[in-house]
């Protein structure tokens, strides 16, 4: 792992801090930005310090994300992103949850994909999950869930 990642991360945070500071000191009415001004100064100082430390202290430049890690989590994050940002509203909460559940389960379940038994097990687990969610949220708690083409 190189020091580039922590430096890049600290740099992004510093840019955010500078943006917050600039907005706080340039927007009007000034009275509405008194508190943001106060914290934005501390924000910039701490973010600058964090970035400087990644150059001055070798251990401050540790941490980050490996290629292996990205390869592992990316499929799940993509499915979760589609579920949260599109499917839940478009298809409805229960339908999209069931689909997301089966897809994520299939992506990360180490059982072989080419066996009918594996898929039956996955479908059974997803059906059980959906039944519990529906009973809990819609029957017992009677709360609203996102609705789309379906429930």
């Amino acid at each position: 792992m190189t020091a580039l990642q922590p430096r890049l991360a600290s740099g992004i945070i510093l840019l955010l801090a500078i943006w917050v500071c600039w907005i706080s000191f340039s927007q009007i009415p000034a009275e509405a930005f008194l508190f943001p001004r106060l914290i934005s100064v501390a924000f910039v100082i701490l973010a600058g310090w964090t970035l400087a430390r990644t150059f001055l202290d070798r251990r401050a430049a540790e941490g980050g994300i490996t290629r292996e890690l990205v390869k592992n989590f990316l499929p799940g994050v993509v499915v979760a992103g589609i579920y949260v940002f599109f499917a839940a509203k478009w298809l409805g909460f229960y339908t999209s949850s069931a689909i997301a559940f089966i897809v994520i389960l299939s992506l990360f379940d180490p059982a072989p994909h080419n066996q009918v038994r594996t898929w039956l097990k996955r479908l059974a687990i997803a059906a059980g999950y959906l039944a519990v969610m529906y009973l809990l949220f819609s029957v017992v708690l009677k709360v609203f869930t996102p609705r789309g083409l379906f429930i």
Partner: protein
Amino acid sequence: MEFLTYFGDVFTVPAMLLLIGGTIGGLILGATPGLSPTMAVALLIPFTFQLEAVHGLILLGAAYTSTVAGGAVSAILLKIPGAPANIATTLDGYEMARRGQGARALQLAFLASLVGGLIGVALLIFLTPVLAEWALAFGPSELFWLAILGVTIIGSLGTSSVVKGLLSGCIGLWLATVGFDDILGVQRFVFHSSLSGGISIVPALIGLFAIPQVIAMFADGRSSSSIEAISVERHPLSRAFRELLSRSRAVVIGTVSGSVIGLIPGIGGQIAGLVAYDQARKVSPERDKFGTGHPEGIIAAESANNAMVGPSLVPLLTLSIPGSPTAAVLLGGLLIHGIFPGTDLFDNHPHVAWPFINSMLIGQILMCVFGLYVASLAARVALVPKSIMAPIVLGLAVFGSYSVQHSMGDVYVMAALGTMMYFLERFGFSAAPLVLGLILGPIAESNFIQGSLIAEATVGSFAYFFGGALNLLLIAIVVASVGYSLYAELRARRAGNAERGTP
């Protein structure tokens, strides 16, 4: 003794059902590695919307109490601490279980948790009203410094890097300013329509605590678990009880350590077990046996973990400063029910405050009773694969965020904050100070504005915010906590450099 007046309120049917449900659910969630007590309580908050404030808090309190104790189950039977607080329990608990003494280890863990927990809640009962009265002396300037203290103390003492902890706190304080300004109604930092109403606390809490764990589960890939739960043999409870009495030194050390650490805002329970374990080992004549399956290790660690729970709520209920990350989430639970900590809580909402506190006392007993019986079941649930656990948590996170205002905007905010937090955690940042900043930000801002108006009309800003004994005391604590943490970090770094032979 006002708490006795409200004791009967805990023994109503809905309260007891929620207490029992929260306790059993909390024990199972606590035993599940990857589901921290903080995340469990955050995910439960939306379920309390339909409930009366008192019942909602009883549910959250029961979950808080039992998730901490439930973590001992997986620590003992699986060698995986259910939560960071149970790390010390793993050291001796698993060794005992491996030798066929799993039931004895679990009984000792739950009995020690009971003793520590009861004393911790007793401290909560007797200290809270006194400190709440003391909080009356706080004006806007003191409340402003108190909110800043809450953020800095958890940012400096509760994280591995002081600067990153404080920076996380700053990010939280900034996020709290997003949306409409309360006084002039001006929009601030609204760069997406989802943020026009500001960032709601509950979706933010869920996102910051649950989503990083979901992504972390994804990051483990398609790994199959090779862990097996050690089966539990029968062991007479009376013998475990006698053993606990005979090892009272470990109980006392654990309870005192946990209570003191719980009272210090920001430190939380993660270190209570380890500190108690270390102290118990130092004073024990059998110190060589620690780590090889010594009961005193479990007793000290578990009594400390649960002794911390009650006192961690003292600064929360009196001064709005949570003693632990889970207490910070409970603060969110209080605020969404329109209840503000401090004297208001005990003067205007005694029917909420006291049954909640009393329920934690009863919850400790239920936790011990059920813990002994559901341990084996909890250990089996703890083995649920991450490929199943991740979508369940994700579904609950979406439901929980949506249910606050029935807005998909909250769901997007939850997902965005959670994803951001995962990456921040990879670079050594921590969610706890960020959450504190988000929760205490509005308190700090409103008191800062009020204080500024008073200061303009009276003595001027500098004299108002930096004058007076209480202000100076709070500023001194802020400076001392940051200074001490920087010193400790520097010392640890020098020791590390010396070990590696680098300058």
